């Protein structure tokens, strides 16, 4: 169990800057997620921690040890590759035993520890199988056992669930989190699936263009994003541009093209002043539809699309003043409105509207 401290890390591939003076601290025992669009540098960062990429500048520390220049085979990290990277010429047992053999662990202990690791991922008794005889989910478990059996200083996971079907994915999320917590492992987990990150992470970081744009708990990132990028990357949202009209305490009134809106939430380290250009982020599930105009925060238009999804109904509301329709999601709908003639009013509570820097 280690803390991982990354300072001012830079990695270039030719002219492309993959990591741009990146700083990050990961606490001991934390299940930490790196989330970002493809090309944002999250896998590069993970591979730099594993030692598979040598950074051009900056340092990486495990606790007090500077591991920046340490070759991968001396870092004691356990990595799970996106493709699993199970060796097809070795059977399940030999795959898992490999790291212990490299460490010259006595034969009897190897047997005991491999069996233990296989039992932990519920693969006991399958040691003699060849890799190609396993299903995707089983391969994934073997890869996890192989990474854990060496008792690594930290576990690194590179989109480990991306090749599984959705049902198995949900199952494995809980499984991986259980194992990490059981061992108190520091784990870094790369994904582009925000649901995976929100449901599993202790803390997470959103990356964009080689930089970390925000770090925090899943609730922080979802409820209090600090930029339009984070709010639209983590979950879905409606972004509305506006200008601060008045401020009283933590009540803001914002002038927008669809009318005046009042909001209460802003990033904690920033206090907008009247006249500031801002972007409002309103999650679809924070909006509700009404026939009668509500008291405040009304956005008016006609429905152009209604989609019924069982647990939700999703509407697109086209306002005359705005190009992009407003997305509204109603939970537990008992009917779907398919009326395209009537003018509807959408509204959200002030505490559900987030004010972002423009």
């Amino acid at each position, binding site marked *: 169990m280690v803390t991982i401290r990354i300072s001012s890390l830079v990695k270039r591939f030719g002219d492309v800057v993959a990591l741009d003076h990146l700083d990050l601290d990961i606490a001991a025992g934390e299940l930490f997620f790196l989330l970002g669009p493809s090309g944002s540098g999250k896998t590069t960062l993970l591979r730099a921690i594993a030692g598979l990429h040598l950074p051009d500048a900056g340092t990486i520390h495990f606790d007090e040890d500077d591991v920046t220049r340490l070759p*991968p085979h*001396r870092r004691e990290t356990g*990595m799970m590759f996106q493709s699993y*990277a199970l*060796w097809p010429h070795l059977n399940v047992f030999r795959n898992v035993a490999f790291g212990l053999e490299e460490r010259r662990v006595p034969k009897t202990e190897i047997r005991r520890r491999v069996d233990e690791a296989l039992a932990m991922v519920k693969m006991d008794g399958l040691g003699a199988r060849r890799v190609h005889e396993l299903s995707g989910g089983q391969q994934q478990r073997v890869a996890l056992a*192989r990474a854990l059996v*060496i008792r690594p200083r930290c576990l690194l996971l590179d989109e480990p669930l991306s090749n599984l079907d959705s049902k198995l994915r949900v199952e494995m999320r809980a499984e991986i989190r259980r194992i990490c917590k059981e061992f108190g492992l520091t784990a870094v987990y790369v994904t582009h699936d925000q649901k995976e990150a929100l449901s599993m992470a202790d803390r997470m970081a959103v990356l964009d263009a080689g930089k970390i744009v925000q770090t925090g708990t899943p609730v922080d990132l979802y409820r209090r994003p600090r930029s339009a990028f984070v709010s639209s990357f983590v979950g879905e949202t409606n972004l509305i541009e506006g200008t601060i009209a008045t401020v009283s305490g933590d009540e803001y009134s914002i002038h927008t093209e669809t009318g005046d809106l009042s909001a209460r939430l802003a990033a904690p380290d920033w206090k907008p002043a009247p006249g500031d250009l801002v972007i409002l982020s309103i999650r679809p599930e924070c909006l509700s539809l009404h026939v009668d105009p509500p008291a405040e925060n009304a956005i008016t238009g006609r429905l152009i699309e209604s989609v019924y999804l069982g647990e939700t109904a999703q509407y697109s509301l086209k306002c005359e003043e705005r190009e992009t329709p407003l997305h509204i999601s109603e939970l537990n709908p008992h009917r779907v409105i398919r009326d395209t003639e009537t003018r509807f009013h959408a509204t959200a509570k002030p505490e559900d509207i987030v004010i972002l820097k423009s």
Partner: protein
Amino acid sequence: MSRSLAITIYAGTAIFFALFFAFPIWHTVEEAFVTADGTITLAYFAELFRNPLYLEGLVNSFFMGFFTTVLALVIALPLALIGNTWQFRGKEILHALLLVPLVLPPFVGALGVRQFLGQAGVLNTFLIDLGLMDASAPFDWLGEGRLVGIVLMNALHLYPIAYLNISAALANLDPAMEEAAGNLGCHGIRRLFRITLPLIMPGLFAGATIIFIWAFTELGVPLIFDFDRVTSVQIFEGIKDLSGNPFPYALVVVMLVATVLFYLAGKWCFGRDNFASSGRASTGRVLRSASPFGGLCCAGLFALVTAVAILPHIGVVLLSLSRDWYGTLLPTALTGQHYEDALGHPLTIHSIANSLKYASLATGLDVLLGIGIAYVVVRTRLPGRQFLDAIAMLPLAVPGLVLAFGYLAMTREGKPFDFLILGEDPILILVIAYAVRRLPYVVRSAAAGFQQTSVSLEEAAQNLGSTPMRALRKITLPLIAANLIAGALLAFSFAMLEVSDSLILAEQQQHYPITKAIYALISSLGTGPNLASALGVWAMAFLTVTLLGAGILLGRKMGALFRV
């Protein structure tokens, strides 16, 4: 792999190629342009082009190369198209057999052709028996059309190269390209000419280039047919009095320049568009099942081509078994005596041992160099690694005869590499010569292996505590073993069958490799040709097994081994 090791491999390979590839060529070129007193002259070339004998040789060599290539393509293209479209019974085995002629030494096969087409040969006997020919004035097929016989022999030997290249190109061709054409109403022969052929042209060209260079400079077959009006044989004859004779050097340079010019011209005409970069196949090619009758036709065609191609070698087998075969359809009496004699003859035992020694040492050298080069090219980001890849492929584009001649020139007494001839023993220079020419096969197959093996398999081993070298040894090498073995087998077979280097560089009888021993036996009187045939049959049996093994290990990927 650490950067310093990669640089060491790079530098080592570069030096090896400078010494044993660039230098022999350069040395030959130098001798061709510089007179004894050190002035630069074009006189040798002027003289050469005034001599009708040399001119005729060049023209004949060109014909030999050109028609061999055309004929090989004519044989291979329909087969490759059929093989990549239809599924029929017995295809796997027929497919493997189709490649066998590649390792049957063509100059041994030429012995068989002589037996069939000679004045007292099988064809004439047959015609006389039918009453179509006057027994007192038999037609001399090989006297009138020796060049035709050589072209035929070469084409039947080399068509597998074209077949493998075209098959590989077809396998890489996205079937959706053809389906799209079909969807737009273009199919059958029209689609073949408008879509398929243009798209596989680079693969076709790659195969054609190798065949042309091979046939243009072929030495063994014309020697056996006793046809000295081709440049390759003229060079070989010229070696006998090399001191003070600049013409062999000049001829070698002319041959080299012509090869390069033909290659560039061909590349300019056919190879300009590289369609290979337009993405790999999105879906696998699905083979259609042929109807029972259609399947029989396909299988028949494959079997027919193979049968015709190995007919000369069947002649060799018969010759090796015959006590007497002159002026009859089949040998009149059979005997196993030649095989015993062949193994008892002082020349043969030595030559088999020598060939095994030279070829396995050369193969070992190739495997070492090949793994190193392929690793640097595929797995590192070292600047200039593409250049390394390119020079490792160059020996395919330079005629073996040119290199062999260069080696001979640079190891003569008083020349800088004289020390490589240990006393009289040419083992070092022969091993190097064999290794250089076969290196491309090993590099290609190793590189293919590295490309197919995900780098994350090595990274996972490093992550679990293996050093990079250990990860390479424990994970990647076992995984690409099939590729390496196949490449090595191929290198080994071709080394065993090597003609130019063997005939030119091995001068003492006790150092003869198999090929030179066969050549020596053929020219000797009495049962010489029978003994040569017996020795050839030993070699062929051995090599057939080798290539079948390589074919099974590599499958369709074999085509990638023959690309420049």
